[in-house]
């Protein structure tokens, strides 16, 4: 049975939009392991994360919740979340984005047909299905039309009083931003590995983020030392 669209190369052993030469033999994981050959290696650091702390504080006393992770799948994150007794859904969002729209092409991300198609493959879940979503920094790479559609869909699939955690670079004048992978070390700590730099589709300030998640019940912002804005959105 032929698979549609972004999944069409799946059974042929393709790695989607990722060229074979970009695979690394071993790495910190997910996008971290996709470092192009010949580029300098970036260090992995561990730092406290108020965003992670706040996110897991909100679900600390519950188990059996449904969490969606939009980052690339990693053993660390899977183990951490499932050990808390939650059910984890994994969706390699940026990989699917690249497979669907090519690399960093804002024009392609504005086509409404393509947007519907992408949403169908990436975020096709029942309404109110998730108790929490780890978005990480995925939204920074979406052009405005796609971003609006994705946020609307996220709001739909997260239950009321559910939480989302998203990261945005705080410097809104950057041409390119560090491209990170995030691994949950513990309830308050993140392991952050920079793989490369990448051109964001748009950058945000607090005001624009408030507008973006206008339907949220509340939002909290935490600024980190590495100039990331960690945002907790409560629906």
């Amino acid at each position, binding site marked *: 049975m032929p698979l549609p669209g972004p999944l069409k190369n799946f059974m042929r*052993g393709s790695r989607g939009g990722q060229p074979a030469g970009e695979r690394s033999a071993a*790495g910190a994981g997910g996008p971290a392991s996709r470092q192009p050959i010949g580029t300098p290696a970036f260090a992995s650091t561990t730092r406290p994360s108020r965003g992670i702390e706040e996110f897991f504080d909100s679900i600390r006393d519950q188990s059996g919740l449904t969490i969606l992770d939009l980052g690339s799948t990693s*053993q660390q994150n899977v183990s951490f979340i*499932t050990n808390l007794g939650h*059910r984890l859904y994994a969706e*390699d969002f940026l990989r699917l984005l690249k497979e669907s729209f090519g690399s960093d092409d804002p024009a392609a991300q504005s086509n409404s047909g393509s947007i519907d198609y992408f949403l169908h493959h990436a975020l096709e879940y029942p309404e109110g299905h998730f108790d929490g979503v780890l978005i990480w920094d995925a939204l920074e790479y979406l052009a405005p039309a796609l971003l609006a559609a994705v946020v609307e869909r996220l709001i739909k699939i997260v239950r009321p009083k559910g939480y989302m955690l998203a990261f945005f670079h705080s410097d809104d004048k950057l041409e390119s931003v560090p491209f990170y992978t995030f691994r949950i070390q513990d309830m308050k700590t993140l392991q952050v590995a920079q793989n490369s730099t990448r051109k964001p589709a748009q950058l945000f300030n607090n005001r624009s983020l408030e507008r973006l998640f206008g339907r949220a019940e509340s939002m909290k912002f935490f600024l980190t030392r590495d100039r990331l804005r960690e945002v907790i959105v409560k629906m």
Partner: protein
Amino acid sequence: MWNKRREEEPPKPISQSIVPTPAQPAPNPIEVKKEATTMSSTPVRAFEPENRGGATIGKSVKVVGQIFAKEDLYVDGAVEGTVEALEHKLTIGPHGTVQAAIKAREVLALGSIQGNVEATERIEIRKDAKLIGDIRTARIVIEDGAYFKGSIDIIRPEPAKVAPKPPAPAAVPAVAVPMAAAASEIKR
């Protein structure tokens, strides 16, 4: 002595037939050594990193339908349908493409799987493997670089409920004491 034996018996591709059954008397040391020699001299095994045993679906084979395995199964070809190896290990080789619902004791994915997977003991998804589907398992290992889309449900092994209740006799006096105490209080 060993070379003579090798000449007498041509190497067998699958070692299943030479595995001693439990009903047999305890094998003497000479027989054990003979098995080891046979396995290591099989030329095919020199290319395999793991000693698989069990059944194999080769990379040029396509199976459409239901597979029920009562031994370990290695799939390096294409399978569409369902695969059940409830008490055994299922390995999807690097060339394997499986579009099927899978139930097995243990699943090792090196190739591509599209379908829900239930691995009662453990599932391991290696670096270049791809899995689209929902996973139910007791333990999961995902290597960095593996592609996974779906949900993960960890099955917690239930503690043995049918075990005899040793504290029961001890519980009787423990309950009886306060009751007696309470009764004496009432009398007072």
